[in-house]
């Protein structure tokens, strides 16, 4: 299990959200909407390739669409390993943030 960067984590989550519609342009739009930061195509493309290399993503070519004048688009899907990786992250995060609220309030009082 590789440690994922924040960006890679967000990319995986976004793809999960997008279900069937996860191709490069839609992923970029969603990410930018959520994080409010601009992401270049290059960075996204490189990340996607990396995630595929790790085995967390797989890609497939969709049907030809009229949007692009008849050529196909490349779609991304999470793999089982990808889901496991996300679950791990979630578990770790739950542990870390478990009693955050109470401890934070306590800290403010002192």
């Amino acid at each position, binding site marked *: 299990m590789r440690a994922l960067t924040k960006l890679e984590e967000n990319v995986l989550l976004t793809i999960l959200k997008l279900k069937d519609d996860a191709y*490069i342009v839609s992923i970029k739009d969603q990410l930018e909407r959520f994080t409010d930061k601009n992401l270049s*195509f*290059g*960075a996204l*493309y490189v990340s996607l390739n990396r995630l595929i290399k790790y085995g967390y993503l797989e890609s497939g070519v969709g049907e030809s669409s009229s949007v692009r004048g008849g050529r196909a688009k*490349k779609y991304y899907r999470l793999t089982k390993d990808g889901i496991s990786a996300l679950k791990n992250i979630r578990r770790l995060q739950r542990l870390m943030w478990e009693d955050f609220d109470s401890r934070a309030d306590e800290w403010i009082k002192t």
Partner: protein
Amino acid sequence: MKRKNKARPPRVGQWILKKILPSEERQYLVEGIEERYVREFKDRGWISALFWYLKDILCTIPLLIIDNFTGSGIMFKNYLKIAFRNIKKYKGYSFINIAGLVIGLTAFILIFLYIRYELSYDRFHKNADRIYRVYMHQKGNLWHGTDLWNVTPPILAPTLKNDFPEIVTSVRLYKDRSGKIINIEDNTPRRVQILYADPEFLEMFNFPMIKGNSETALSDPYSLLITEKASVKYFGNEKSIGRIINIKSGNGQNYSYKITGIMKDIPGNSHINFEFLSSIQTLFTIGNIDPFTYRGNFTKTYIQFHANYDVKAFEKKLQEFNTRVGRVFRIQPMTEIHLYGNLNVELESNSDIKYIYIFSAIAVFILLIACLNYLNLSTAHASKRTREVGLRKVIGADKSSIIKQFLGESFFLTAIAFLISIFLVKTLLPVFNAFIERKISFGIHNDLNLILSLILLLVVTALIAGSYPAFYVSSFQPVKTLKEYYRSGSKRGLTLRNSLVVIQFVITIVMIISTITVFRQMQFIRNKKLGFEYGHIINIPLARNFSDKFDEFKNECTSHSYITEATLSNTPINVKDYDSAEWEGKEDETTRMIYKASVDYNFIDFYNIDIIEGRKFSRNMATDNTAYILNETAVRDFGIKNPIGKIFRMKSRQGTKGTIIGIIKDFHFHSLHLKIAPLALKIEPAHTLSLKIHPKDFNLQDTMTFIENKYKQFFPGHVFEYTFLDENIERMYIQEKKGSQIFNNFTFLAIFIACLGLYGLVLNMIEQRTKEIGIRKVLGASVSGVSFLLMKSFLRQVIIANLIAIPLGWFIMQRWLENFAYRAQIGPLVFAASAFLVVGIALLTVSYRAIRAATANPVDSLRYE
């Protein structure tokens, strides 16, 4: 319709993207970007879309490139192995390639270091960009071609500081070269130069003190600061602080100075240099100078501005100041002095920005030739790797992998060449430094800027040299290459290679033309009749305050058998007096300036100068001690009709009236850069004794010892010095001479690299055509016929190069020669000579191999595949 209004992203960007990405991947990303662009275009217009596109592409392309290269980690070992194998297999070719790159890189780096050094002059001071110097414009007072003078009255500095709030400090400098040190132990006087400065000097400039207190060191009169090097030179390892040094100044008086501090050695890239530093108040006291007047221009003034100063505003205010005091002062940034300062009476001779330009051009050209070489050679050599490339493609490598491999190989070769050239630079630097008289250091370990620049150089060189071959090789088609006989010579490739050879040779030929021209000009200068004799003549400066003994001394010297003649006059090249002239019949009021040489009666005979009209000075004529002899230019420029017998006078100081008794032929009393100016000779005591030595005097040492002893007898406590007139004259052109020598060396390098490349190309071509040559011979072609066939194309390229280079070279040389008032004739002979030279060298390079191929046994070439 405007192209931009079409909803397509810029084609250039898309094309680049396509080139970078592997083919299957390509379309998805490219189309994705296009889709996004279209949306932006529809929503917010083409400007916003273009903006967005540029922003994105600027990030995307570098990321893709980096990703590309780090992705092939697996193949890296294989590429490296293959690269090594290829170098071993084709030793000759690799050697030629690397050698060319090494030479180019070494030359480039050396010149780069030089330029960097020159541009760094005076920048080590903390406030360097706020320090300016003040100089005077004395309209009409032309000397050595300019009427801008680096001397100001001593009152200027404090006045400027008081009157202008934007000036923080002002400093005066004066360099005194007439002092002589008298050591305590032995009383041999040694000449010293002392720089006198205001106490703020240590504040304004970054010359740190090692020992002593910088605040008080320069405030006491007769206090002396000494540099480390000088301390060792004069006192060895002993402590020098607190010691008293006696110095005899130019006026003959002795003064005792006390050493109050030791300074760190002055760095080489400073226009201010000194061994001894003293307070300027000392100078005023010694010279009995009133520093509070506007009379007397001799100090150099430097000012430093506050942090937020406005130069233009100050210059305007300065103009008002100028009108008020009746002088014209101007300012110049200190950092410009070394390369742009060409005023009269500089502290030291400066360099010129011209040299920077010329040497930058040379550096770029040599590196270009080396890169073009590499390009040519590897493209030609690619024919050896066709099968490898074909096989790789069959197995599954895509175009970008092939490109990566070959680009990587050129990086590898370039890196090897780079390391060798770094080593060469380190080794050659001391020699280089000695020759150009600089102290450049190659501190790779502590100079981050340098390291980065060198890395950039490596990358750029590898890219320029290796990109095209990599792309060329990656376009091989597998099927074709794996067939029996594949000639990798597309029409396009051949023309490109030919034009590259032409470019290389154009550059080389222009350099050769320049070299020959410069050489001719230098020769011309050396041989041009200066109009006076200067061989076997020695000049001895005499101590001013002993003028009553001069004649006696002169006679004593001539008593020596090997001294044929002596004269007490200014030397012909050392004419400094400059004054305004008046003569009988001068009609208008314009000031006409004339130089004056103080001479002895036998000046004209001593230097063998021609008299055109009238007569020479003669002791028999009592009035001759007020008479004047003018040169042709004076009479011509001033328009004096029938000059003999007219009254003449120089306006200021000892401007006595006298009659013009003769006109001499013009002689060059300045360097050949300048036109001959008007000159007057007058009988006046001069402080130089010139002796003519008999040419048969082979034991010069004895003669000089004799004179030295006499000198010491007559002028006790003064330093005996002498110079040879012909050496002094040579020294006027030393900069040019050195410059031309360096240029010659680089031209030679350029020729060498270009021929190296040519040799490699010939080798390659012959190899490819081995079978063809064999068949031709079998069919009956003669050796000379085949040789000629092989050399034909190369000859054609060299001739084309000549046709381009000759007009170019002529144009450039005309511009350079404009620097000289007196020029050598550059006739068609020069161009013919360089053309022949280049054609000859190229022929030699090519013919050896060609003839060998032509005489080879056809059986051997046709035997194997």
